[in-house]
């Protein structure tokens, strides 16, 4: 029996999302990334004696939003706790987090599997906490500490151990990423650490009810790394069990350069955080009214938007999935559709094709934001309108699109300036076709004796002579008429 059929993996993820607030969670220091070391600090986030933290309300708002988007119960009362450990990047000697009474519990996320089916992944809890500072080990013979990140608000989303493969973990993380981006509560940048993911992984024989010994894998700073690291760790554990070895419960770091996991030198040997309620922060009470208001402010979420795109625009499931990946992209599509002169499923599909191929190619290559993209939705709509009206062909449109990218001009201006208007005048086209047909009597008889694929040759010749500007539909019609016996 292949090993991957003999064993099954059990995976749970802890995702830390940095909330996009302007100020820190317990003080008014800026959360801006990349500022000079120790410039966004004050007595509160430096952990000076006698200071008092005050909770940033936006952090609560954002976390409630995430809780609602993942179908959690919002706790009527939640409190903050101190997680005690000594590390230089944590000046107070404790991290303010939530322990026994987190703000959100018992939610779920539906992910899509390769076979098209849906799987529900449980969300155990979502809580608010502060980030730690940054230790730098390679700038001095000693360790240097930058406290800027200390107190930046984080939301920790803990899943149930419901995932059974690296791919499922990937899909779950993707869904969390998509949701925080749609909600506008986190920028989702994994490379910069705005979204971080740790995985708890164990394996067991299929059919076994109890869990095996788990390891925790950290330092996976991209979607691809998450999938690769989990895959690696699952195989490592299976191999160990096959060799009769015991799995040791430990924390591992993913080394992306060498494709391996390495044991982490532990921050504190005994994980004894001695949590207790933080006396400096009073309970957060969330009444029904607040939850109702938060629900009202929720935007349309990715899954809802995707099914609406399928229903409203008659798009294939695949197109709807691609177009709703990001909120800005979905909005770009809808704004383009709004500019159509003729609303029809065919025209929606035409726009979808242009966005999925041409627009996304340029946007992905340049890593630019949709707001900065040189072809606006109204210009793209105007270009598609020119195709619908028969002013330009799809092929000429490619040329117009490239020009729009460069000059940001309106497509009509480009078509006029470059003389790209399509010729639909039947008599003009007929004249050219007559001239061409007179040059190829052999091909005509071959066509008439059954070599119908030669039609493409005649169309090509006509287009060549007319510099691609002839209306292909008219060319086809005339050729059909003239070549039939």
């Amino acid at each position: 029996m292949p090993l991957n059929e003999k064993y099954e993996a059990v995976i749970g993820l802890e995702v830390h999302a940095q909330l996009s607030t302007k100020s820190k969670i317990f003080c008014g220091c800026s959360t801006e990334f990349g500022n000079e070391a120790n410039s966004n600090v004050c007595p509160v986030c430096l952990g000076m004696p006698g200071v008092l933290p005050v909770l940033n309300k936006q952090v609560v708002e954002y976390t409630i939003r995430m809780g609602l988007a993942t179908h959690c119960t919002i706790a009527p009362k939640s409190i903050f706790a101190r997680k005690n450990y000594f590390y230089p990047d944590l000046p107070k000697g404790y991290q303010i987090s939530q322990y026994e009474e987190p703000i959100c519990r018992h939610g779920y996320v539906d992910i899509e599997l390769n076979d098209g089916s849906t799987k529900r992944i449980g969300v155990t809890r979502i809580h608010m906490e502060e980030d730690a500072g940054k230790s730098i080990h390679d700038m001095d013979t000693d360790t240097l500490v930058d406290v800027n990140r200390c107190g930046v608000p984080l939301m920790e989303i803990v899943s149930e151990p419901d995932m059974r493969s690296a791919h499922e973990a990937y899909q779950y993380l993707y869904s969390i990423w998509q949701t925080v981006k749609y909600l506008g509560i986190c920028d989702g940048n994994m490379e910069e650490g705005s979204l971080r993911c740790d995985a708890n992984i164990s394996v067991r024989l299929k059919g076994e009810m109890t869990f095996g010994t788990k390891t925790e894998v950290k330092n996976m700073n991209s979607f691809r790394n998450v999938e690769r690291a989990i895959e690696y760790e699952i195989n490592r554990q299976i191999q160990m069990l096959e060799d009769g070895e015991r799995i040791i419960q430990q924390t591992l770091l993913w080394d992306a350069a060498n494709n391996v996991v390495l044991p982490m030198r532990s921050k504190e040997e005994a994980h004894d955080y001695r949590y207790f309620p933080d006396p400096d922060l009073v309970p957060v009470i969330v009444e029904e009214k607040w939850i109702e208001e938060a629900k009202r402010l929720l935007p349309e979420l990715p899954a809802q938007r995707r099914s609406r795109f399928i229903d409203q625009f008659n798009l294939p499931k695949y197109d709807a999935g691609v177009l709703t990946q990001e909120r800005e992209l979905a909005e770009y599509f809808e704004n383009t559709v709004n500019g159509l002169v003729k609303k029809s499923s065919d025209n929606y599909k035409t726009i979808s094709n242009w966005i999925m191929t041409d627009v996304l190619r340029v946007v992905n290559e340049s890593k630019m934001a949709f707001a900065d993209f040189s072809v606006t939705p109204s210009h793209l709509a105007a270009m598609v309108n020119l195709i619908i009206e028969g002013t330009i062909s799809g092929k000429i449109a490619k040329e117009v699109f490239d020009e729009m990218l460069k000059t940001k001009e309106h497509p009509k201006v480009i078509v006029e300036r470059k003389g790209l208007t399509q010729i639909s005048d039947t008599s003009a086209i007929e004249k050219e076709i007559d001239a061409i047909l007179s040059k190829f009597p052999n091909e005509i008889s071959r066509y008439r004796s059954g070599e119908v694929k030669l039609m493409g040759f005649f169309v090509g010749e006509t287009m060549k002579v007319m510099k691609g500007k002839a209306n292909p539909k008219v060319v086809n019609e005339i050729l059909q008429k003239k070549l039939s016996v």
Partner: protein
Amino acid sequence: MAVTIKDVENIAKLAKLEFTDEQKEKFLHQFNDILKYMEQLNSLDTSNVEPLSHVIELSNVFRADEVKPSTPTSEALKNAPEKNDKYFKVPKVIG
């Protein structure tokens, strides 16, 4: 449940502190005295009492998400025993 010397040593380690055997012995008695007092509280029936996390009856104390001026870096570093330019400097953590 009584505290042992081993518990005292573990707590000292978590606090990154070192003590002599005499001091440990002294803490052992003090810790156990505190626990004995707690035992006394445990004799009360609290099954119908909601756990109390805060002694003051306040909730929802918030601030608006507004950036306030931070402390100048030179001020922030003033009490640091060691620094390197704009950084706090501490003994090597790993490596």
